[in-house]
C-alpha cells in the first residue's frame, strides 16, 4: 500500500511516540517573527533552557514593520520595543536574523522560500498560521502557538497528532483572468472554513502541476483558511528549478543527493487518502468574498446567495455577515464602491503577483479611480528590489498606487497601514474577518491581485476581464 508525502515526511521526522499517544516530531526549519516569539524566549529564560539547534531557526520582522519608512527607531514605541526584543533574542541565542538594514527582511513566508530555506521533504513550523504556504515545496508546514515556539527552540521538536490526508484534485486549464487565488477561494467555498479540520490538504492534478511555485504558494498559503493546518503540492521539476542556486539550496554533489531524497518523498501513485475531491479548472471564475469568512465568496458576476440557500445552522452567520458588510442577498457584489485597494501579503505579495498586474496596467494605461487609496506592498525587500529593477515602481506610481516598503502591512494592520471606519477594501490578502484590516468596523473583499487592480481603477468591484479587455 502506497504512502502519501504527508505520511512519508511525518514518519521520517517522528522521533518517538509519547505517553499521550501523540508523536514527538522533529522540525527541519523553524521560522520566527516579532509577534509570536518574545514570550517564547521569555519562557526559555525563565526555565534556563538553551537552544540546541540555533542554525535551524531563522528570524524576520514583518507584522509590525512600517511600510512608509523603515528608519529606526520606529515612531510606534511598542513596535520598536518588539523589534529590539527580537534582535536581542537572536543575538543572544545565535539565530540568524534577516535584517532590514541588509535588505534581507520580508514576510516570513516570502523570505523563507526566497532564500531556499524551505525544501521538499522537510517539516517547517512558525508561530504563524500561514506557515502552510511552505507546503508548496512538498514540505509539511504548519502554524504553531507561542508555547510551541518555546518547545521548538528548546528541543527542535513538537508534540503532534498525525493528520488525515485529503487529496484535492483540480484538473484542466484555467480560463484567462482566473488565477491561483481564485482556485483556492473556490476550494474553500466548496469545502467550507472548517472542512479541513483534522486534515492535511494534498493539492494535485494538472492545474497545480502547471502552476509556478509562486502560484502554488498562494494556494497552500490559504489551506488554513479552509481549516487545514497544512497543505502541500508534491515536488517536481518546477520545484527543483525554483530551488536551484538559492542561498540555502544544496550545491554540487549535494544537489543530486537532495533531488533523490526529494523525489523519494513524493506521494506514491497508489497512496491511500482519507478523502479525495475533484474539481474542474474551467468551472472556476474570478472570485470575490462578500462576507466575514473566506468561504463566503462568489464568482464576481454572480448574485449574492440568499440565507435560505444555506443549511439552517449556518443562516445566523450569513445574516451576520450581510449586516456587517452592508450587503444584501440577490444583488451582485460587482459594482460595490471601494475605498481602499491593497496588493501584497504572504498570499499575493510576490514578484509574479505584481508582474501580472503591471502587465495589465501597462497595456491598458488605466489609472486608479480618484478617491481610492491604493497600496502596493512588496512581500520582501528582495521582491521590492526586483520590482524597482524591472521598473514596476514607476508603473504603479504613475497609475496612482503608493509603492511601499516590504511587510505584512494592511493584511492585518499591526503597523500604521489601516482601514478607517467602515471603509471597504479590495484586498489580495487572506482574511476578511471582522476588523481584520485595522478598523473594528472595516470591511474586506478578498480577490486576486489583478481583480484588486481592476477594482482600484473602477472605484468599485469589477470583473478584471472587462476592465483590462482580456481576450478569451
Amino acid at each position, binding site marked *: 500500500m502506497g504512502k502519501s508525502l504527508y505520511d512519508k515526511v511525518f514518519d*521520517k521526522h*517522528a*522521533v*518517538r511516540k509519547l*505517553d*499521550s*499517544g*501523540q508523536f*514527538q516530531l*522533529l522540525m*527541519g526549519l523553524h521560522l520566527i517573527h516579532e*509577534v*509570536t516569539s*518574545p*514570550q517564547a524566549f*521569555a519562557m526559555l529564560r525563565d526555565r534556563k*533552557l538553551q537552544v*540546541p539547534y540555533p542554525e535551524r531557526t531563522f528570524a524576520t520582522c514583518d507584522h509590525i514593520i512600517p511600510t512608509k519608512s523603515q528608519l529606526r527607531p520606529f515612531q*510606534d514605541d*511598542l*513596535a520598536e520595543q*518588539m523589534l529590539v526584543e527580537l534582535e536581542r533574542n537572536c543575538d543572544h541565542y545565535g539565530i540568524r536574523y534577516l535584517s532590514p538594514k541588509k535588505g534581507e527582511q520580508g514576510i516570513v513566508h516570502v523570505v523563507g522560500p526566497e532564500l531556499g530555506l524551505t*525544501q521538499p521533504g*522537510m517539516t517547517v513550523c512558525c508561530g504563524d*498560521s500561514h506557515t502552510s504556504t511552505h507546503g508548496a515545496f512538498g514540505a509539511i508546514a*504548519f*502554524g*504553531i*502557538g*507561542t*508555547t*510551541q515556539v518555546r*518547545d521548538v527552540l*528548546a*528541543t*527542535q*521538536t*513538537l*508534540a503532534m*497528532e498525525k493528520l488525515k490526508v485529503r487529496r484535492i484534485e483540480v484538473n484542466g486549464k484555467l480560463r484567462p483572468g482566473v488565477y491561483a487565488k481564485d482556485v483556492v477561494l473556490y476550494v474553500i467555498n466548496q469545502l467550507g*472554513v*472548517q472542512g479541513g*479540520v483534522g486534515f492535511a490538504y494534498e493539492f494535485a492534478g494538472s492545474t497545480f502541476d502547471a502552476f509556478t511555485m509562486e502560484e502554488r504558494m498562494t494556494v497552500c498559503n490559504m489551506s488554513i483558511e479552509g*481549516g487545514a493546518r497544512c497543505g502541500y503540492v508534491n515536488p517536481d521539476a518546477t520545484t527543483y528549478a525554483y530551488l536551484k542556486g538559492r542561498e540555502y539550496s*544544496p550545491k554540487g554533489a*549535494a544537489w543530486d*543527493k*537532495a533531488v533523490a531524497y526529494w523525489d523519494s518523498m513524493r506521494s506514491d501513485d497508489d497512496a491511500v487518502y482519507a478523502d479525495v475531491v475533484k474539481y474542474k479548472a474551467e468551472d472556476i471564475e474570478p472570485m470575490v468574498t462578500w462576507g466575514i*469568512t473566506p468561504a463566503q465568496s462568489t464568482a464576481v458576476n454572480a448574485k449574492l446567495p440568499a440565507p435560505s440557500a444555506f443549511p439552517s*445552522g449556518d443562516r*445566523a*452567520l450569513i445574516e451576520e455577515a450581510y449586516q456587517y458588510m452592508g450587503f444584501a442577498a440577490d444583488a451582485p457584489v460587482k459594482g460595490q464602491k471601494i475605498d481602499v485597494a491593497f496588493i501584497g501579503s504572504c498570499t499575493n505579495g510576490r514578484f509574479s503577483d505584481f508582474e501580472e498586474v503591471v502587465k495589465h496596467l501597462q497595456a491598458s494605461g488605466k489609472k486608479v479611480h480618484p478617491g481610492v487609496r491604493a497600496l502596493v506592498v512588496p512581500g520582501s525587500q528582495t521582491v521590492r528590489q526586483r520590482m524597482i529593477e524591472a521598473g514596476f515602481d514607476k508603473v504603479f506610481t504613475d497609475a496612482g498606487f503608493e509603492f511601499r516598503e516590504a511587510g505584512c502591512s494592511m493584511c*492585518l*494592520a499591526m503597523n500604521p497601514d489601516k482601514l478607517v471606519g467602515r471603509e471597504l477594501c479590495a484586498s489580495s490578502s487572506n*482574511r476578511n*474577518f*471582522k*476588523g*481584520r484590516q485595522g478598523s*473594528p468596523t472595516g470591511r474586506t473583499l478578498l480577490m486576486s491581485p489583478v481583480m484588486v487592480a481592476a477594482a482600484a481603477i473602477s472605484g468599485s468591484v469589477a470583473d478584471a476581464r472587462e476592465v483590462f479587455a482580456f481576450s478569451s
Partner: protein
Amino acid sequence: MQDFKRTLITGKAISVDGNDIDTDRIIPARFLRCVTFDDLGSHSFEDDRKQLREAGKTHPFDDASRQKAKVLLVDRNFGCGSSREHAPQALMRWNAGITAVVGESFAEIFFGNCVALGMPCVTASRDDVQALKRAIAADPNTELTVDLVHGEASAGNVRVKVSMPEGARKQLTTGRWDSSAELLEGKDAVASTAKGLPYFAHWH
C-alpha cells in the same frame, strides 16, 4: 505543589454565540503589539463588545452577572484563523480566568494552544451545547462542570457527553500538558532521528 492534573473543572459559565468566531475577534491584532501576555485579558472580544454596546446591546463579556465565569460555551469552529496564542492567553486572563471551553468544534491550532496551556476544549453535539446554554441562561450562578475523566459536562439538571482527542485528554488528566519536560527527555532520540535525515547533515 501545584497540581497540573485537569480532571474536573467546575465554575460559573458564560456563553458566546456564533459559528466561526476567529482569533482576530477574540483578541484584535492591535493588542498583539506587546512582548508579554500580561495585559491581554481585558481586551478579550474588545471590538465585538464595543459594537454591541453602540447598538444598545450587551456582549456576554460585558454582562455584569457573568464576570466570575470560568467555563466558556461556544458554537462551531471556535478559534479559527490566526495561530496567535494571544487568544487563549487573553481568555485565561479575563477576570476570573477562563479555565475550560465547551463547544461544537474548535479550530485546530487554537485547540492545540489551549491544551499547551492546560485549558481543555471539549466538544459536544449541537443539541447538547444548546442544552447546556439553556441550563446556565437563567441563573448566572449556575455552575458548569467538565469531567474529563468520564467525558461529561453538566449544569443544573442537564448532563451531556463531551469528548476530546484521546492524546490531549490524557495529557490533561495526567498533568503532562506542559510538553517541554517530556520533549526534553527525548534529547538523544532527537539527535538520532536528525542523523537519519540527509538534510540535517547538509547532505554529507
